[in-house]
């Protein structure tokens, strides 16, 4: 059931160490500070992608470690990526409409 080499306890569950949790917590706080600092810089069109990148990194840490996905079955590992893919489908095909409305249609 576990895909890394951490020991399982008697009940087949992976018990993470509190030290790991605190480390992740610190990384998340750091990421938050980074987000705020980056927002006040002017990266032009890159401001949004940078903010989203940091948010994705934070979310990944929460999913992998707080939500134990790193130690879960392949099926569970597929769950969030699948949901994101379908959300991406919604956003990208919608973008085809909204971007397309700005493009000229030759008569």
């Amino acid at each position, binding site marked *: 059931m576990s895909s890394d080499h951490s020991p399982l306890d008697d009940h087949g569950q992976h018990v993470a160490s509190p030290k790991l949790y605190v480390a992740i917590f610190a990384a998340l706080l750091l990421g938050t500070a980074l987000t705020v600092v980056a927002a006040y810089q002017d990266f032009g069109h890159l401001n949004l992608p940078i903010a989203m990148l940091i948010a994705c990194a934070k979310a990944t840490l929460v999913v992998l470690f707080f939500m134990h996905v790193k130690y879960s079955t392949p099926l569970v590992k597929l769950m969030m990526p699948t949901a994101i893919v379908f959300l991406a489908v919604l956003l990208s095909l919608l973008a*085809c409409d909204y971007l397309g409305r700005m493009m000229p249609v030759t008569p």
Partner: protein
Amino acid sequence: MSTIASDSVAAAHELDHEPLDESLDYINASYGMRSWLLTLDHKRIAILYLCSVTFAFLLGAVFAAMVRIELLTPAGDFMQAETYNKVFTMHGVMMVFFFLIPAIPAVLGNFLVPLMIGAKDLAFPRLNLASWYLYNLGIAFTLYAIATGGIDTGWTFYVPYSTQWSTSNVIPVGLGVFIIGFSSILTGLNFLVTIHRMRAPGLTWFRLPLFIWAMYATSLVIMLGTPVIAITVVLLALERIFHMGFFDASLGGDPVLFQHLFWFYSHPAVYIMILPAMGVVSELISTFSRKRIFGYEFVAFASLAIALIGFLVWGHHLFVSGQSVYAGLIFSALTMLVAVPSAVKVFNWMATLYEGSVSLETPMLYALGFIGLFVIGGLTGVFLGTLGLDVHVTDTYFVVAHFHYVMVGGTIMAYMGGLHFWWPKISGKLYPEFWGKISAALIFIGFNLTFFPQFVLGYLGMPRRYWSYPPEFQVLNVLSSAGASILGIGYLLPLIYFIWSMRYGKDATENPFGATGLEWRTSSPPPTENFAVTPTVTWEAYDYSSVPMPEVSGG
């Protein structure tokens, strides 16, 4: 059977203990309203759903009858125009949300999924019961809306009419739809976990019946699509109550955004309707050809492909909405793609029939009818997916005919076929085969008479949702209404003889049709725990060498 001993057995059943007396089946395991209304047995919950969706169907049929009566004459003389708007809206709402989407999953799926995989119940029996109660809560809000004046926006709730101009009961119906969406999500969740984790020993994925593959694909669509309609209905309600501006062009909002969000669910929703139907048809074609489905793996993967591609095509409902032409091109191309896995299934069913030992029992008649009518409905869908043609026939009766061919000629035919096929398992009784064939014939004839003229009407230009029309369209409309009466009789007959059979029907054996599938290796009806001993599966799907010959044949 209602002795003191069986009362204590009944009590044990309600506490989910092992059955003490295996001659009891799930129907007579315990008595009384409470034992049914508070049941955790997936088979009883399926019966509860059967009652609910039948009620919804009959109510939706009443609204349909009102529509067809009005359309007998060109003038709007049976009811007011505003009333007509409410009638077709409520027909759509009842049929789509409260019948077509839940019917096969919640009735046949709930009953059969655990049986087909050799499990004792679904993974979460209490969620299953909760989902039935949510269905009832949803329909209660909708009935309240109907009783207090109805709703006139069309089942599609397009803005800004539904948010700013309609004075009808939009919010209660929206609430009903939201709640039933949650009911649907719980069902899908239950099926996914059950199929993943509770298959009997030896039952690998490629030994599963194709109905299970179909329910799995359907459940994926439910989980990914339904939440979007839920949030859309919330936004609709907030817009209507608080005028927040999401879809109000005067504030910068975009009414077409509503359509995008609505159809992102509602197009996959039609695959929620058709995938289970296709799963039923696979079972029927195989059993009544006494042959393994040709290209089993292709059919299984086609279900997943339909589920996936079905999420990519919603914009074909928006071709004339103001959506960008470029998006229209992309959606049109993707729409062509979604026809491919459906066609794969049809070819595989035909190949199964070829050189099969075909017998024409009632369920097989429905399955064959499905194939023909679904092909017509599906192909006309491809016509509609063609941008140029769609501009001509959109919002006409051509569209109405298309979706009734797939939903009624497709889903409802399969549902009827499945009800007949599994009726012996569900009730322990045989339905009368003669009347079964008569009803199937009446339904097929009535259906085509009702809806084929509508293709012509649409192409000639009769708009949908109109309560009056030019006199030159009357002949076709009269044919359509006549067909609807025949169709109505065709649906009423099974309602009568199924109920009749519960009292007077012949007792069914374990496997009257000589079908494969674990559900046919337990009694009819099954005991509460489904199997006396959990089976270990060592044979492939549709292995007819391991089952007896059918006992029921011909009339």
